């Protein structure tokens, strides 16, 4: 519970007194929950995660509206990601301008809400936290310095809002007609749905998740939002928030509505794989670094979503691994872009070049992160992509051939990005990184290499959760 309330409290404190604090205080605020997340992780023991272990179950508004938190390996991994990245994000993603205090407070509030999303084992709580996590990001996005700020945010808002409404409608139907006014995850899980109900209700949830992930054609909010948001917004959205959608798929869609999977599977699989290719092809042509990363991100999450929908242990575990890895890498890349932009005044490939000459360590870090994103073996991008592609191959070989083109195009756009920013002629100097940026880059590079060698650390922790979710799907007679 501390994981939820501490950041909210910190957010309030920061909103009230933030002008007197610098970002290091925010960093400390954001880092304290990490201690609890790590503690939880160790208490549960890496190999022995227990599914649906209840952390708290208290009557809240009434006996039926309960405050239920749970923990398992899957939740644990996402808590580590959220609370591990958040301190780094408040430290490096927020510019020292008139929005500093506001954006920091919002980011801290989001931290609490995200923790809530990942721990909630109650439909209403999940919905509330889901919405609470979205609100801060709207306001962060609104503070972008772009003529169309309002329009871009509006599009983002409408997409997510409509998705959420669909989920809320499904939830209401379930509570009223199916579970006798209980929102508890276990009750929602245990209810019997007819095929039609499963398709409609599951569709509602799926809608909310598909927008957040995003799966094409629900992605059109993404590129502009990532590109024009302040870094903190791009980082929060891409590194953590889109994992809400993927997490939602695994926790709230698959085991609850397995009857509908057969119905949606072909659609989601083909859309996701199409997204892999679609994002990669567009990324090839981008000049704006942030836009390039936005579309590469679209490509990466498409692969994750496709892996999830293979319903295999390989696909699901690969998906969780890749969620964590993508979070770390994309944060690192956005940070690198932020650094480049601050020091050279541009993040457009047309203006850049030759940064390698004067900035050795930064170059190494940027190259390592880009290789991670291009899934070169011995970096963290490889094992996840390997597992995902393998699961898709086992599902249907032709889809894997299409999705596999990403390993060619991924290399092409990442190397192109390196070429025109770091190499070639140029005299750009990145004077000195501040301590926060330095720490963050070191942390990201460390994890790119460490998880490239020992991805099993993550897989071990989620194995049991994933297996029990697959068991749940099987229990309902789907999957032979």
């Amino acid at each position: 519970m501390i994981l939820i309330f501490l950041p909210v409290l910190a957010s309030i404190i920061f909103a009230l007194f933030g002008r007197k604090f610098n970002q290091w205080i925010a960093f400390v605020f954001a880092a304290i929950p990490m201690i609890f997340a790590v503690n939880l992780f160790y208490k549960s023991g890496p190999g022995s995660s227990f599914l649906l272990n209840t952390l708290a179950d208290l009557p809240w508004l009434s006996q039926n509206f309960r405050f239920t938190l749970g923990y398992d390996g899957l939740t644990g991994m996402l808590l580590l990601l959220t609370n591990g990245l958040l301190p780094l994000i408040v430290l490096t993603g927020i510019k020292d301008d008139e929005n500093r205090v506001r954006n920091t407070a919002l980011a801290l509030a989001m931290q609490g809400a995200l923790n809530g999303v990942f721990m909630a084992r109650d439909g209403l709580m999940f919905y509330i936290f889901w919405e609470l996590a979205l609100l801060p990001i709207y306001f962060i996005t609104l503070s972008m310095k772009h003529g169309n700020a309002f329009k871009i945010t509006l599009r983002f808002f409408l997409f997510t809002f409509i998705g959420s409404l669909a989920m809320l409608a499904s939830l209401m139907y379930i509570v009223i007609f199916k579970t006798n006014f209980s929102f508890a995850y276990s009750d929602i899980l245990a209810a019997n749905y007819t095929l039609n109900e499963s398709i409609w209700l599951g569709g509602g949830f799926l809608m909310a998740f598909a927008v957040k992930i995003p799966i094409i054609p629900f992605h059109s909010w993404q590129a502009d939002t990532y590109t024009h948001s302040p870094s903190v917004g791009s980082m929060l959205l891409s590194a953590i928030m889109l994992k809400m959608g993927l997490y939602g798929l695994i926790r709230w869609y698959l085991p609850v509505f397995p009857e509908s999977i057969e119905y949606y599977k072909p659609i989601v699989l083909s859309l996701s794989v199409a997204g892999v290719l679609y994002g990669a092809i567009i990324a090839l042509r981008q000049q704006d670094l942030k836009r390039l990363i936005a579309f590469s991100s679209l490509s990466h999450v498409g692969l994750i979503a496709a892996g999830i929908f293979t319903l295999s242990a390989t696909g699901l575990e690969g998906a969780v691994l890749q969620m964590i890895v993508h979070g770390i890498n994309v944060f690192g890349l956005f940070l690198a872009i932020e650094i480049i932009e601050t020091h050279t005044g541009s993040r457009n490939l047309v203006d850049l070049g030759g940064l390698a000459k004067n900035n050795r360590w930064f170059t190494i870090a940027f190259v390592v992160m880009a290789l991670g994103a291009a899934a070169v073996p011995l970096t963290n991008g490889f094992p996840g992509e390997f597992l995902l592609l393998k699961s898709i191959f086992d599902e249907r070989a032709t889809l894997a051939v299409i999705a596999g083109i990403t390993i060619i195009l991924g290399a092409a756009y990442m190397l192109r990005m390196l070429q025109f920013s770091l190499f070639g002629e140029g005299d750009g100097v990145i004077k000195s990184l501040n301590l926060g940026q330095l720490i963050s880059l070191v942390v990201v590079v460390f994890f790119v290499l460490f998880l490239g060698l020992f991805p099993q650390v993550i897989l071990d922790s989620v194995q049991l959760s994933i297996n029990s979710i697959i068991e749940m799907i099987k229990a309902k007679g789907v999957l032979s």
Partner: protein
Amino acid sequence: MSIIILLPLLGFLVSGIVGKYLPKQVVGLISTAAVVLSFAFALHMFLEKSILGEAVSQKWFTFLQVGGLQIDVAFTFDRLSGWMTLIITGIGSLIHLYSMGYMKEDEGYYKFFAYLNLFVFNMLLLVLGSNFIMLFFGWEGVGLCSYLLIGFWYKNLNYGKAARKAFVMNRIGDLGLLLGLFLIFKEFKSFDYTIVFDQIAAGNTPAHVLTAIALLLFVGAMGKSAQIPLYTWLPDAMAGPTPVSALIHAATMVTAGVYLVVRSQALYFQTALASDVIMWVGLATSLMAALIGLKQNDIKKVLAYSTVSQLGLMFVALGCGAYTAAMFHLTTHAFFKALLFLGSGSVIHGMHHEQDIRKMGGLKSKMPITYFTFLIGTLAITGFPFLSGFFSKDEILLHAFSHSPLVWGLSLISASITGFYMFRMFFVTFHGKYRNTHYPLEKVHESPITMTLPLLILAVLSVLGGLLNLPHYFGHNVAGAFSSYLAPMYKFAEHSPEVSASTEWLLLAAAVSVFIIAFVAMRMKYISKNSVPEEDDSMSGLGKVLANKFYVDEIYDAGVVAPIEIAGTVTDGLVDDIAIKGITDSIGKSPNWISSLLSRVQNGNIEYYLIYMVIAVSILLAINLF
């Protein structure tokens, strides 16, 4: 065995991290020592174990374990991987030593050695890994190092382009390889060589599955070993420093595809269709590259096309089922092609970065050691009797003949063209009159000892390499040593060519005569008549087509690269920006209530309203909880 693999990695870390702050000589010595020591350990292990037929296996840790899938980081030093290790670390040592002289003036000295060490490490992963995933690790790793080293002089955008081309083209092959691996796992439930090949050898696998796997793996080999249609990156890769061309793009990395096929002998032995594909692709590549090589004037480009051509010959051998012959040629080729590249590097070094052979000539007197060793390399590759290339090439031709006289004929043509382009280059470079007006002959100098010593060692190996696997007419006591060494590595015994003794002598005579024809013809043209290859603009007809490499690059650009780029632009501009956004926006715009809601969001201090809301919810939660 760990130490063989870890030494180069250690060298990479040391020279990469602290190398910048150490004197150049020290960095060079550290990285060279790392590889030399690695070679020493490998040699020790080879003599202690491999010779006796013992394999050493080692597991470090489990890399991935999901469901029924388990991938170990594990290594096996057997006769095949042991042999490759010796080549990699042995030639690697010489090239490290050479680089200490060649790269002396370069500001990126420490970086160069770091990358070289990293390359050796990855190459060792590739050959020593005991499952397909380790191979894939090394496979991609060497591709990465190749990328880093081709683009080593990163300020030059063209070099950068060549580097990216190499990496991306390799990744096309890698996708094929990866899909092949997935299919292997689907069929055999393992990536482990022993398990997979035992099951394949058992013969219960449907033929079409085997063929599919064999072809997919070969797609990977096409990328790495520069075969049609994925060969165009290799000539461009000459943008990298010359030692890199010698080590990566001639002696070791490009032979990874050959290694993969030999390793998977159990598979290819049983798939006639895939073997035929390999043979014809190899043959086509060999001929096409040899023809292009005839009209190149950049000393490194000639050697690059020659490498592509020789690799093609190795694949012809593999396609004919002559796995040992391919490995034999791989070995001798590693010797003489490394020698030739290093020799060309010595020329380039002595001529202050001139690579155009039309601007050379008469270097013989100024660079005696380079001249002499280059001559040996040229003779070895063109098949001068009793030098290494003579034996290895003849073994391939013999197998080709026993497979089909047509294949033999075409291979012989390719082999004879080798003679033409090599002697053309050799005579134009070292004989005749000096032709460079910008760089006076007096300034041309022989290279330092660190560079000439490796040349001399490689020259000895190029001469003696043939002793490894002498043909049977030398008597059974000495002949076929390499064949019997590799024989236990095969699941199925190799066919020996069914050719009568008289035919064999005829084949031999044919091979020697094409060598003589090429030698005499080129000598007449470039020494007796003293002619010089024409300038680019005066070319016409077939010569121009060859000089322009059959316009394959242009065709790829127009046929593949441009369409993808156009697709990107169109998708981004039309589909994504206008169509999808347009549709979704118009849906969003219609309901009035949403816009009125949002206009409220727009005005002013809404963020504080939000924070208050969060506070309110929190308080509500808290009250109810406690």
